[in-house]
């Protein structure tokens, strides 16, 4: 479920910093530079992320018409991750270990040899599998400088904040009771009062408890 279909689950972010007047001109090159690059099975990386087109995580050829639509900037954060089922890895590792032991005529592998073997088997399995792909839409309204990111997950928030900052040189500040109050322009005095607030409780305090007792009697 994202920006285009189904129900909408999102976190709001305030875009912080000076947005260039010609945003497309200033940033299209950097958006393309941060477009998603596929994972390579022979790399040590387990996960990679970058921008893709909204509604099609496999479209990473990012042209102006796919990103800028009237007052909106639309992108998707694509995250690919190798996810080898542990049982599969274990079975292949056991088989490979057995072969090495037989070939070398030894009874046990050393720690380093085991790690090397695990690395080799992992890369071999990666070549036979495809990474798990996840894509989360981001829609940024340039009139309000509020961006909707269609996930509540903190880990995904961290990724998009880092990528957004790298791409646009602007910060994404997640909405919370504190940031929304700040966004609405509290005075310095009101900000201080907000920071000093103590939680409200509707539980019976002494006076209310006494009143309740009196009413019950």
């Amino acid at each position: 479920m994202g920006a285009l279909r189904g129900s909408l689950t999102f976190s709001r972010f305030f875009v912080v910093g000076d947005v260039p007047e010609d945003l497309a001109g200033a940033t299209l090159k950097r958006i393309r530079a941060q477009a998603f690059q596929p994972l390579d099975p022979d790399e040590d990386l387990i996960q990679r992320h970058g921008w893709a087109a909204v509604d099609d995580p496999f479209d990473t050829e990012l042209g102006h018409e796919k990103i800028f639509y009237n007052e909106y900037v639309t992108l998707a954060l694509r995250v690919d991750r190798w996810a080898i089922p542990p049982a599969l890895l274990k079975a292949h590792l056991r088989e490979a270990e057995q072969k090495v032991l037989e070939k070398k005529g030894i009874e046990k592998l050393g720690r380093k040899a085991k790690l090397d073997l695990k690395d080799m088997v992992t890369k071999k399995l990666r070549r036979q599998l495809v990474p798990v792909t996840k894509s989360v839409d981001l829609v940024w309204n340039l009139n309000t400088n509020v961006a909707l990111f269609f996930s509540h997950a903190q880990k995904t928030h961290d990724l998009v904040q880092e990528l957004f900052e790298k791409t646009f040189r602007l910060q994404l500040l997640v909405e919370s009771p504190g940031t929304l109050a700040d966004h609405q322009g509290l005075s310095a005095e009101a900000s201080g009062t907000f920071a000093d607030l103590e939680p409200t409780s509707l539980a019976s305090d002494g006076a209310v408890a006494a009143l309740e007792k009196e009413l019950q009697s």
Partner: protein
Amino acid sequence: MSNLAPARTAELVELNRFVGREFLLWLWFESELYETNLTPSTGEPFSLWLETQITLASEAEETRVKAHMPGLAPEAKQALRQGKLPIATKISAILGGAEFRWSFKADQLAIGGLKVPAELKAEEDKFEALYDRMRLTELLEAQLEALYRDFVALRLDAAWERSIVPDLRRWARGKEIDEKLYAKLKSKIVGKRQKREAS
């Protein structure tokens, strides 16, 4: 907001998250007091009510109430009297003649599963459909922001502890609230904020 230092940013995000629970409490209170008809000072009058479930929590305990109108359930009010505050609920609203439904997490002010009355389908025109959905989502967000703005004005005023919390306590105990007095007080505090903003 200007450029914020990372430490200040993190601090601001985490600052007084309980205020989100109090905001939801206040929405619930106003929705009952005004029979769902809310009037944000800078938005449009609209209808809003809690629906199907509400979760209340204190540090140690959680109470989940499932009912057609969970806010009216005695268990929900009892949880308030035990010192719990609402942390999550489902909300419905009628805005501009259209119905919106969503789930709301108070600590993050986060919206989930929002159903908007969008008419265009992505299969017909991707960007027009997006535009339609964003327009409706932003319409609702503007209303909620306007309500939050009013709530914060009340919350930061000395009258919160002096008059509003006692009203909330009476309401949680099923006692009468002087609606006119509350409305007058609210109008005075919100008006003060508007004057300050205008000057």
